[in-house]
């Protein structure tokens, strides 16, 4: 299998789906002539032309809504937000149009569209450019939400997202674009709502998605040295959520630690904590724990910004606490 970057995996997914379906277009700031702010769309303008790879002005509300309008009229747009932070300019279009037109119209208007871009903390970007905003998308019915953690998942999930008839929020990560992983030559799709057990274990269930999955895998290696066998679940799709895989794992390990780089209040992590507590109560040997970011805006200083976020040490300490080993 070829070893490629997450960036290249995403690019391949876009290219293959644009080859497959002429209604798939890519639009957003800098996606065409600049090849994307994070170089995800390299060569796509040359191959598909300016009618299908479309540079927009810096008008997030406007081009997000235009994508939605094109989608209800029959296109399958992929809208790139340069970063998910800028989607806040367009949140009305996402919440009130993309997520609700099907429902409000009694099933008449489908909105097959993908919104994608980097989400979550990067480095040295301060408060406005280093936010993990998955909670607000998962909060709203009518949106599907995906967040891959590897090159393999990124490609198969983006292809599935583009083929779906619903609005999909596809959360990438700036620091992950250069991560490498094996990707097969054959075509494959990763369906919605299927979590992936990235490591099998028997003593504690660790749950996350996107970039922090790597922290979980690294923490699991350290924990194994101390005799704690951690199972690592990568949710991949946040909505619809694969509750079965989560519950089955927790019923086996009897302990659960969730890691979410968003703020803790009303987050994906806190919601999964509620679901596990409610559905696995009789199986739990310790309280469900959440390792989140601190409830503060992101500081610029690197030592401070690292202190704000989940870390391997925080995860290990938490696992030891729920294992009564600290």
């Amino acid at each position, binding site marked *: 299998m070829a070893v490629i970057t997450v960036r290249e995996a995403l690019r391949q997914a876009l290219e293959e789906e644009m080859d497959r379906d002429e209604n798939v277009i890519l639009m957003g700031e800098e996606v065409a002539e600049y090849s994307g702010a994070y170089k995800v769309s390299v060569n796509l303008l040359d191959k598909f032309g300016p009618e299908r790879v479309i540079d927009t*002005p810096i008008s997030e509300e406007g*081009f997000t*809504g235009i994508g939605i309008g*094109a989608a*209800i009229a029959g296109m399958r747009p992929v809208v790139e937000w340069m970063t998910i932070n800028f989607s806040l300019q367009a949140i009305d279009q996402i919440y*009130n149009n993309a997520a609700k037109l099907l429902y*409000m119209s*009694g*099933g008449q208007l489908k909105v097959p569209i993908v919104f994608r871009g980097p989400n979550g903390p990067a480095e040295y970007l301060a408060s406005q450019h280093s936010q993990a905003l998955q909670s607000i998308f998962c909060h709203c019915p009518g949106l599907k939400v995906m967040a891959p953690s590897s090159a393999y998942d990124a490609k198969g999930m983006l292809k599935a997202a583009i083929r779906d008839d619903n609005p999909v929020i596809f959360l990438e990560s700036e620091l992950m674009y250069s991560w490498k992983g094996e990707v097969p030559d054959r075509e494959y799709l990763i369906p919605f709502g299927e979590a992936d057990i990235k490591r099998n274990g028997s003593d504690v269930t660790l749950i996350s998605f996107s970039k922090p999955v790597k922290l979980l895998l690294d923490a699991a290696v350290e924990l194994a040295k101390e005799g704690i066998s951690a199972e690592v679940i990568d949710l991949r799709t946040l909505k619809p959520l694969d509750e079965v895989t989560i519950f089955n794992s927790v019923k086996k390990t009897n302990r659960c630690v969730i890691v979410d780089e968003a703020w803790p209040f009303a987050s994906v992590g806190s919601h999964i904590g509620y679901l596990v507590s409610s559905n696995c109560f009789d199986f739990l040997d310790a309280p469900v724990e959440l390792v989140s970011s601190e409830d503060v805006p992101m500081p610029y200083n690197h030592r401070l910004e690292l202190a704000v976020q989940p870390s391997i040490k925080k995860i290990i300490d938490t696992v030891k606490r729920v294992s009564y080993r600290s």
Partner: protein
Amino acid sequence: METAQVRQYSKEFLSGLMEKMLLIRRFEEKAAQMYGLQKIGGFCHLYIGQEASGVGSISAADLSRDFILTAYRDHGIALACGMKPGHLMAELFAKASGCSKGKGGSMHFFDSSLHFLGGNGIVGAHIPVATGVAFKIHLKKESGVVLCFFGDGAIHQGSFHESLNMAQIWKLPILYICENNQYGMGTDFRRVSAVTDFTVMGNSYGIKGKQTNGMDVLEVYNVVSGEIDRIRRESTPGFLEIRTYRYKGHSMSDPAKYRTRDELEAYREQDPLLLLKTKMLNDGHITEEQFEALDARIKKLCDDAVKFADKSDEPALQSIYDDVFA
């Protein structure tokens, strides 16, 4: 703009305009009555006084290829597109037989088969969506034109300005129609607009604006016909301000104390139905008796719509989960 001459048009055409406007007037009167009887709940924005705007405009469109989108004052626009009064009244009554299966209500009428794509409750939020429908027409090299209606309240939203810019840089076939009924809810548009002649609003985007008298259905028809022809020919966007007036409050709870009785009476004297009727009478296209017979027939249509809505079933409770996802 000189007043359109009645002689240019056939009796059938004029009768069609009259019938549509009268249907809207009587439908809205019936809706107000049903609201008073608490058959209809929530927000209900009536189109009475503005009939010539919607009917004149949409009569100029070819709904086999053109598309219509509007905001929440959508009853008249929906009827002008040819939606059936029964399906609309049933939607107002929140019944399963309503055009949006009782999920949308007054602000969310849709009929995708008639190319009427709503019915949007957030001021200005549908303007990018309408622009996106025009974007699809442009990308697919089709011949349709989008008519995007909105009120004077929406014209200061960023969504309007972002849309006009993109419509112009991409040469999209869309006519932006500001139905200036002169009050954004209770606020006189002159109090909140830096300019009171909206024809200049597209100047920054190279879009030349026009203005027309929205009380005269033939003038509206003429101007919109001309604009649609031009847009089909040149494929560049247009902007039209239709000066109109709503006789009723913003919604059912609004006693409209922000304007004088004299002002309302002055507009009633140039009532769009009265204006057309007078022209048709003078030209021998209709007699008082024929008008009375038409009115009686339309009143019965609206009575039948109420009967249909009344005897229709409530949506099943289980339907709350339908159409969240496609």
